[in-house]
Each structure stands twice: as C-alpha cells, then as structure tokens.
C-alpha cells in the first residue's frame, strides 16, 4: 500500500469515527447495518466474485449466526464475545455441509440448492419453537461488555467498524494469496485448473466455508445490535439483497461490498417517504446496474480511471532450462490395452503406446480418430473402460485429473483454456505451485519474488512478448497459445501433453512452437503431441503413432509412417490420390449457386481464406 492510499484510508476512517462520535441512535443503527451488510458482502464476494458460485440462500447463514448468539446469550447467559466466534464456526460448518450437495451441481441447479437451504433454515427457525421461540423470536439479546464496561450503541458501531475494516483487509490478503488465485482459476476454467494440479472440490468448499463464516459472524453481531431476531428477519428476499450488495458494488472488487452496502442500506432510508415503493426501487436499481454497469459501481469507476497495471518486471531472469530439468524426472508415459466407449462407439480401442522421456511422440489421425480422447484418458478427464496408464512405474489409471497433474502431467488444449479474467502473470504464477497451496498461505501476502521471476522467465522462454498485467482473455490468439504453454511448463512437468498447439497459427509461429518443443525435450521432458499440421509433426517428432477409428494402425519414425500404405488409406480413402482431384470448370450454361470474388477471411493474424473466386 503506498503512502497516498494509506492517507486516504486513514482520512475516511477518521471521518467515520467523527461521525460515529456525534451520531444519534438512529444514525448509529444505520452505520452498524452498513457495516454488517459490508461484511456479508465481503463473504459473498469470496463465493460469487472469486470462486464464481452463486448463492440465493445466504440469509440462512446470517440467520444461523444470529440464532447462535441470540440463543446462547439469552438462554445460557454466555458472553457475546464467546458466542460471536462460535456463530462464525457453526455457520462455517453449515457452509461446508451445504457445499457437499452444492458442489455436485452448477448454474441453476446450484441456485436451487441454495434457495432450498434458505427456506429450510427460515422455516426451521419458525417451527423449532423450543429452541428459537418460533415466530415470536428471541428477545433481549444483550450488547457485549468489556472488563465490566457495558457497550452502548456507539461502542457497538465502533466495533462493527473494526470488523468491517478487518473483513476488507482479509479479503485483500486472500485476493493476493495463492488461494485467491486458485479460486479465480477454478472460476474461469475448471478444466484448466485441474490440469495445473488444483482440486476444484477443495477450493470450492473453502470458498463456501469462508463465505459462510463471514456471513454467520455478521449475523451474530446483527443479533446483538438489534436486540431481537425472528424468522421474519431472514426471508428469501434478504438473500437477494445480499446478492444485490455484491452486484451493485461489483463482483470480485475489493471495495465493491462497501459501496453496495451503502447503496442498499442508505437508499431506502433516504427514500423513506416512498417506503412502500422500496422494493420496486430495489428491483429497478438492480436491473439498471446489471444492464449499464455489469462490473458494478466500483468496476465502472476503475474502468473510467483506466489505470492499466502492466505488472512490474522483475530484474533477474531465472534459468528456465534448469528449472524444467529439475522437475522432469525422466519418466515415460505408457498405455497398455487402453479402451473406452461412449454409447456403443469405441472411441479408443485396445491402444498400446510408450512415450519416452526426451522424445516427442506424436499422435496423428483423421478427424474423429480418438486423438483428443487419448489425451483426456491420460490426464484423467475420462475413465478408461479397461487398460492401464503408467507414469514411469506408477499406475495413474484411475486418478483424478488434478492428482495426475500433481504427479507431473501437464496439458494444453485444442481451444485454449486460459483463466481469462486473470492477468497473464497470474495464469503462470498459480501454476507454479502445482496444486500445493498449503493451509498456511490462505491470507498470506502474494508477491513472492522468486515465483515472480520464474513466471516472467517462463513467459519469455516460450517467446511471449506481450504485457504481463493484461487479462489473459484479451490476448491475441498466438499469445494465448504461448501463455498456455508457459502455464503448462510452470508445473515442472515430467510429461507435457499438447492438443493441437499449432491450430490457428501461421507457418512462422508454428515453426517457432516446433523449435520450442525440441528445446523442451532437451530437459528430459516426455512430450506427447496431438497435431494436424503434418509439417510440424514430421519435422519435430521422434515417433509417430497413427490412430484410425480409435485403433492404432501404424507406429514408427516419421518418415516410415508417412510411407505406410495403411496410413495413406486412412487419410485419403481407397482411391488413388489423383482420382480425388476434381478440377472441373464451372459449366458455362449453369448459374453458380454461390460465387465469390476475392473473398478473404481470417482468425486474428492468420489469414485462412485468400482470394477465392
């Protein structure tokens, strides 16, 4: 944090403290509500903004926290101080329990699970009268006291302020930590996150737990602030308001929840003369924000200021070849009798191969031959029906995708799978950990210098020359390929599996990829290449495996395979090549169905169609 920002934060805090010192009871209550909405918003932001999961039932966690404090302080006379942490813990446990069904579902299914959870908790609070007082609620929840000094509303407002600042601070720490990056990685591409060794389940559960703890804690304070809680304090609509807090401010924006809370809490108070139209305004406001400022107010503001951070360049370059050599354990990747079927179609049929360390083993074949399926089997995205896949001596056949990546099998994709909303540098940084996040790093400062240098060196190694601080999704196609390659190398792989790395690249860039792959093999990495570009395959491969309809039809050095009659047949059919060449002029008497003149088209920098007449 630089000095100017620290001064600004300090000034705002002093201003708020001055206000609290002079505020009346009503104003103090509003201050507390804004603070609590901010804390909930911060928690929800971890779930919605960072990890990309929706919850339409967060009022339930708020309720759980509130009832823990309400019941324990009134019935058992526990102190607020002991019950508050407990509120967070119990809500967190509920969050983990909810995560179990929630993790198995996505999108609208997840929305449904959280809605149902919200209803179960709300109705449960209403019906379990012995514990919760039913619709009558819990009355007389005390304010805390400290060393015999009873808190008034004013001290309570200060306390909420402290917790609000703390929650924002923790969010900033989490955001910069490996865990924050991992959550964003899972959000942007679950598949790619697995192939750098991240366990999406663990990361999603963590996000749920953190989110629930923050919300439950805030609920606990709410109970103490309001003195009275009942099921009516936590309706379904409250969950929508919490979502509104995050969305108005801007998902995954540090200050988003604060801005959102100010709007959501203050607006109805300012418009209190229109009290009955409150919900109408809330609905219209939500629609407007979603339409006009999809990044929320904070997102809009940062976009207007347009301070594009380009990412400080580290001074020292690391020796990438040494880094890769240290990781490549010289293990081969072999498959025996590998088969898998999808609905009666044998996509891969009794396949055996052995990819040796330091070699480039290419898998080629016509469209639909099962090449990508083989990669997916190798990397644990599909389970084979039978057969064994070995990494060195170890059997990795039925391991989860992220475990296989942790064992050192890296992967790139036919259509690039980058973490599109993360910066180029972060894409590589998170991969450097190879899934080992460590429990201690959850709120740790990011910015490990050694990692930063390594990541930049890797990007330079693959030939990436673009900006490091740009979101990866905004890159041109060639750069996306390069960043994905750098990310795959960052996990220090033993095996590098590439799915059509040259697709959409022009010949010059393709040649550069070829050179790079040769360089990579010198570190002892086993390279498995699926590719359609025959020039690339023939020039870089040590061995070529040809698949047709899921079965291996030829294997050997490139030159030998290219001359194999079976291979020619698979690619070109039974006819002699000359028969296939049709060169009929358009018959003059007929009208052309489609005629073009000088049609050009292309993807990014590559021109695909030139002068078609």
């Amino acid at each position, binding site marked *: 944090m630089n000095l100017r920002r620290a001064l600004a934060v300090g000034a705002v805090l002093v201003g708020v403290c001055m206000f609290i010192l002079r505020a009346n009871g009503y104003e103090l209550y509003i201050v507390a509500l804004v603070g609590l909405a901010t804390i909930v918003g911060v928690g929800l932001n971890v779930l919605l903004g960072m990890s990309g999961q929706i919850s339409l039932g967060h009022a339930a966690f708020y309720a759980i926290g509130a009832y823990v404090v309400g019941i324990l302080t009134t019935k058992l006379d526990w102190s607020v101080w002991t019950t508050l942490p407990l509120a967070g813990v119990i809500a967190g446990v509920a969050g983990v329990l909810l995560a179990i069904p929630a993790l198995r579902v996505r999108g*609208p299914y997840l929305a449904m699970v959280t809605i149902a959870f919200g209803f179960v908790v709300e109705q449960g609070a209403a019906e379990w009268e012995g514990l919760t007082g039913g619709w009558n609620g819990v009355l007389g929840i005390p304010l805390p006291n400290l060393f015999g000094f009873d808190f008034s509303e004013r001290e309570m407002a200060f306390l909420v302020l402290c917790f609000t600042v703390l929650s924002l601070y923790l969010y900033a720490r989490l955001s910069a930590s490996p865990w924050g990056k991992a959550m964003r990685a899972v959000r942007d591409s679950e598949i790619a996150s697995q192939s750098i060794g991240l366990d999406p389940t663990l990361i999603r559960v963590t996000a749920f737990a953190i989110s629930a703890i923050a919300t439950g804690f805030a609920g606990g304070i709410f109970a103490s602030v309001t003195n009275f809680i009942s099921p009516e304090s936590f309706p379904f609509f409250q969950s929508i308001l919490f979502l509104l807090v995050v969305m108005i401010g801007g998902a995954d924006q540090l200050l988003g929840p604060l801005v959102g809370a100010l709007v959501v809490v203050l607006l109805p108070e300012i418009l209190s003369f229109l009290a009955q139209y409150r919900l109408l305004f809330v609905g219209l406001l939500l629609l407007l924000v979603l339409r006009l400022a999809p990044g929320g107010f904070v997102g809009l503001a940062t976009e207007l200021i347009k301070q594009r951070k380009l990412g400080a360049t580290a001074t020292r370059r690391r020796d990438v070849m040494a880094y890769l050599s240290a990781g490549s354990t010289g293990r081969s990747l072999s498959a025996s009798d590998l088969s898998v079927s999808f609905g009666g179609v044998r996509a891969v049929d009794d396949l055996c191969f052995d990819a040796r360390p330091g070699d480039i083993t290419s898998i080629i074949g016509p469209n639909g031959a099962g090449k990508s399926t083989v990669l997916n089997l190798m990397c644990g995205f599909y389970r084979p029906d039978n057969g064994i896949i070995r990494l060195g001596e170890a059997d990795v056949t039925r391991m989860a995708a992220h475990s296989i990546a942790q064992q050192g099998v890296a992967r790139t994709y036919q259509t690039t799978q980058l973490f599109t909303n993360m910066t180029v540098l972060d894409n590589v940084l998170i991969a450097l950990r190879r899934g080992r996040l460590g429990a201690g790093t959850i709120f740790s400062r990011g910015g490990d210098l050694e990692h930063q240098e390594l990541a930049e060196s890797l990007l330079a190694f693959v030939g990436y020359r673009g900006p490091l601080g740009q979101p990866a999704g905004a890159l041109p196609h060639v750069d996306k390929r390069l960043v994905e390659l750098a990310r795959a190398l960052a996990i220090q792989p033993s095996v590098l599996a590439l799915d059509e790395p040259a697709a959409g690249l022009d010949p010059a860039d393709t040649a550069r990829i070829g050179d790079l792959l040769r360089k990579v093999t010198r570190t002892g990495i086993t390279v498995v290449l699926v590719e359609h570009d025959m020039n690339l395959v023939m020039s870089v491969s040590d061995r070529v495996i040809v698949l047709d309809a899921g079965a291996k039809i030829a294997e050997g050095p490139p030159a030998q395979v290219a001359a194999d009659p079976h291979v020619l047949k698979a690619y070109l059919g039974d006819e002699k090549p000359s028969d296939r060449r049709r060169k009929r002029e358009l018959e003059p008497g007929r009208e052309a169905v489609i005629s073009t003149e000088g049609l050009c088209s292309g993807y990014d920098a590559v021109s695909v169609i030139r002068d078609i007449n």
Partner: protein
Amino acid sequence: MTASEKGGLGAALLFAGISVFCAAMLVSSALISGLGLGSMYGLLALGFHITHAVSSTVNFAQGSAMMLGAVLCFTFWVTFQWPLTLAVIAGLGLCAVWGAIVERTAVRPFVQRGSNAWLMATVALGIVLENVVLFTFGKDPRGMPAGLLTTNSVEVAGIRIQLLQLLIPVVGLLFAAAIRIFFQRFHYGKALLAVVQNKDAARLMGIDVERVVMASFALSGFLAGVAGIMVAPLFTISPTMGTLFGIKAFAVAILGGIGNAWGVMLAGLIYGVAEALIIALAGSTYSQIATFALVILALAIRPTGLFGHAEVKKV
C-alpha cells in the same frame, strides 16, 4: 374369551378399521389434491424447461407470470365484467407478452454479452412486476368468485371432489401432451428443437434464433398464466401468490432434470403428491422444511435431477 374381551377386540378391530379407512381417505384426497397441484407445478416447470432447452437460460420471473395470469383474469372477469372466455384469453395473451418482455429486457442483453447476470435480472423483473401489481391491484388477497367448476362436485368412494380438482390434472397433462405434439409435428416446434440442438447450425438453416428464443419465453409465460388461472379458485389471488409457487415449480424443473419435458411433468406430480401427503400425515407446518430438504437430498444424490442425463464433458 369372555364376552367383554370379545367386545373389546371387536371395538379395537372397529377402531383399527375406521382409522385405516380414515387414513385411506386422507391419503386418497391428498393424492387428488396433490396430483392437481403437482400438475400445475409441472406446467410452470415446463416453462422453465422450454426456455432452458432453447436458450440455456431460466426465467426466474415465472412465478410472477403465474400471478399475473390470475390477477388479469380476475380483473377482466370480475372488475371489468368481461365474459369469462374473453377474460381468460386476454389474460393468457398478456402473460405471453410478459414472457417476451422478460426475454427482451432481462435475458437477451446479458446473453449477447456472454454474461449470466440474466439470473438476477429476471429475479429483479419479477420483483418489479410483483410491486407494480401491488400498487395497482392492491395488497389484499381476493378469492375468485364461485363458478361452475367449484360449486359442483362429484363423490367418488365417499370423497367429495370439486370438478376443478379433477380438471386441473387433466388440463396439465393435456398441455404437456400438446407441447410434445407441437415439437414433433409442427414446423415451428421443430425450429425450436433445432435451436436446442445447435444454435449456429439453426441460424445457418435460416431459422431466426432470436425470435425462436423470444417465442419460447412467450410460451413459458403463457403456461404460467394457465397455471395461475387454474389454481386461482383454490387459493386466493394476491400479488405475492406466485413467489413461493414459482420457487416450488423451479424445484420441480430441477428435480425432473430440466432438459427432459416428461421428467419435469412427472417430477411435478411427485412433488405435488409428496407435499400433499406430508401435509396430510404430518401437518402443514413441516411441509416446506421437508419438501425443500428432500430437494437438496435428491440433488445431492442425483445432481442432474431424477430424470436428467449427465452430459459427457468435452475437453
């Protein structure tokens, strides 16, 4: 065995018989009302299914469309004194228009920029409609005046059933069947299905995808309107009547596996009957807790719904 013992046994048997009979009555009347309500959940859920199938989006304002149907029908028929048929047709037509409005204002703008904020946007639009109705129609719940279908009833095996209660499941299943036929036999239905399969290919075949998506939202609004008008005589009409009903219908759509039309309808019947049985046997207090807990449990066991199929993810 003495006489008194015999008498005691007889009394016990009689008591057991009566209670079994009562339970059977309870269960069968629960079955009937459950099937009726369930088929309405199913109808509303079919609306979720159609829009999801065509555009992979879900209209969370469905509950409000159902409420709109009931409110409009009541207003036209009772307040404006229109003939019932006209009131129903006008109400349903406006529900379809509402569905199209939801698509244009709260779904299309977000889908076009690849955002999934349509979820919250449709929720917001539902809230807006609910409140607009609140200020125009009024807060107080009103009952549909008694009509032909509610005053007349038949007696089956000792249970009195309103004609309406018999009609509701029939209408529900008829609509489900009509939709099925529409998709399979008619040109426009096939266009919808083509869009479901592959948006880009459908566009290349000259199908106006945007219009088809909008039509699917209009159709889902229409179905919600039907459900609203059908259940209005059983409950009271109020601006908030659609909220919980809509959520339950969404639960039904999810349980049925949102991509499967018959699955959705079947899930509606199961949900309706389960809810009615829980109310009949355990009282209404726990019905919401139990049904929503069952929803969570069902999804934990079968994440793609009871009748849905998992898709093989392509990497």
